[in-house]
């Protein structure tokens, strides 16, 4: 897979289907054993934004780790473009919850990290490609800064550039905008959506924010409470390019109601089970009004 990225990546993004079949995962030994994912089937269709939403602590991050190849499931299979996933690989890039930029590398060094490691490009090409992507995420002035010198939103954009330079077939976003303040969060959602609508790279986006989910999604996958399984798939039929105004439409409101109903039921279930997610319950009850 030594594919030299073109001067402009547009139109050359590989489109792949991701299939997840019969996933089961448990942690712990013997009587401490806890099922985290149970019989989970999920499709991430090529060129679409599939958003996974579920109660906090339901096993979303475990799902991400399995798809990325960081963890092996107890049973079940993940196929990318028909090929079973056996470990981490640069065909699947994860943007993590907290920033995972190496603090000892500058923005440009971070962005160049992957191709440099694999020795794919000569120095000049790599530099040009890194600079192009850094420009694209609007960090031109910050190329030579270290991650800790950037704001939270800038860090996430640098991370997007670091992922994109590897030309992944699948982008996995694990609650990437969590921890940002409301303002930067909205800006990042819009920015990220623009990127996606430009190149239509197959995308799996994990979140626990309903508005974010509907704003971004082509398909909204609602997970159950732990152990996670797919409760419902909602096709989000809102026009693209999306705008925030669309969230106020009747259609969007219906999607939100539908998803929240399921999430609410799930939250009630886990609440009754005594897993103590009352804060979550409260938050969603407020939002549903």
């Amino acid at each position, binding site marked *: 897979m030594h594919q030299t990225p073109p001067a402009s990546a547009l139109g050359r993004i590989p489109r792949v289907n991701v299939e997840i079949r019969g996933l089961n995962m448990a942690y712990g030994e013997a009587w401490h054993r806890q099922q985290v994912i149970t019989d989970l089937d999920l499709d991430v269709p090529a060129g679409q934004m599939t958003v996974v939403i579920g109660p906090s602590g339901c096993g979303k991050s475990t799902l991400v780790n399995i798809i*990325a190849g960081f963890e092996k499931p107890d049973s079940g299979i993940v196929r990318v473009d028909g090929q079973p996933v056996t470990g981490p690989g640069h065909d699947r*890039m994860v943007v*993590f919850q907290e920033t995972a930029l*190496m603090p*000892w590398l500058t923005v440009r060094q971070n962005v160049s*990290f992957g191709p440099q*490691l694999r020795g794919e490009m000569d120095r000049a090409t790599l530099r040009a490609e890194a600079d192009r992507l850094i420009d694209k995420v609007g960090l031109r002035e910050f190329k030579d800064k*270290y991650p800790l010198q950037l704001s939270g939103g800038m860090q996430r954009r640098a991370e997007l550039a*670091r992922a994109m330079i*590897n030309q992944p077939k699948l982008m996995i976003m694990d609650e990437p905008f969590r921890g940002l303040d409301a303002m930067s969060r909205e800006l990042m959602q819009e920015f990220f959506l623009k990127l996606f609508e430009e190149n239509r790279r197959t995308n799996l986006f994990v979140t626990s924010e309903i508005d974010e989910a509907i704003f971004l999604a082509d398909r909204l996958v609602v997970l159950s409470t732990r152990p996670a399984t797919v409760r419902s798939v909602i096709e989000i039929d809102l026009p693209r390019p999306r705008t925030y105004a669309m969230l106020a439409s009747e259609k969007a409101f219906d999607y939100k109601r539908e998803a929240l109903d399921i999430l609410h039921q799930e939250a009630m279930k886990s609440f009754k089970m005594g897993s103590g997610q009352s804060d979550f319950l409260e938050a969603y009850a407020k939002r549903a009004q």
Partner: protein
Amino acid sequence: MAVASPSRSTFGGFRSSLGGALTNPTFWRGIVALIGFALFWELCSRSKQMFGVQVPWIGMVPPPSDVLGAWAKVVTEPGYWQSWYLSLNRVLAGFIAAQIVGIPFGLALAVNRYFRDIFFPPFEILRPIPPLAWVPASLIFWPTNEMSIAFVTFLGAFFTVVINVLGGARTINVQYLRAAQSMGASQWDLFWKIILPGTMPSIFTGAAVGMGITWEVVVAAEMISGGGTRKGGGLGFFIWNSYMGGSLEQIVVGMISIGIAGYLCSSAIRYLGFAAMPWRRLF
């Protein structure tokens, strides 16, 4: 840009340039504090002859003016500088050996499970033994006094270095490792490109703490071993000798000399850390 420019930043109080120090209020406050402290000490030491009342403890210490006088005399004697040289040599020998052995050992403990399972338990049993408890064994182990002192000094820093490196390497954010793995990093890459730079801050913390301990140990070891050569046995022996000779001023000269030597050594480490970790200069 809401980013502080690095030229105005401090790193553990260390200034990036002398010019920066001279315009820095922290630097001047430090100078004033030192002068104020010396004046207070002078007053307390002379309280008996000035007011007829002796201040407890500090009243028994010779005043700084007398100490400076003793110092002025001592600096012309080669034995004093010989003491500096000998102690510094021992500290550096033990310290550098501790880094050379301790950093790879700590990293190996951190990255290899089998290595850790085998070597960590004996390490943990040996670690609480104070370096000075090693002095008799060390005198038996090594043919010369000099080597015994260096060995005890080495031990003083070694355990601290290893514990810091181990802790630092074990607490590297797993996401860095995962991100690198996704991008195609081999085990070799993970070690050199993630674990080593990620452990750097702890390596320098270990070095700074270890440097302090080597000074403590070297001085005590010199006092115990009697110094070795007749020309002068290091600053520890210098103090001991002054005590035996009944010169209170010289004792204080020796003590402050050690303070200055230790400060110079930790400044050197801070400077190295500052140079080696540009990403830590931001605050």
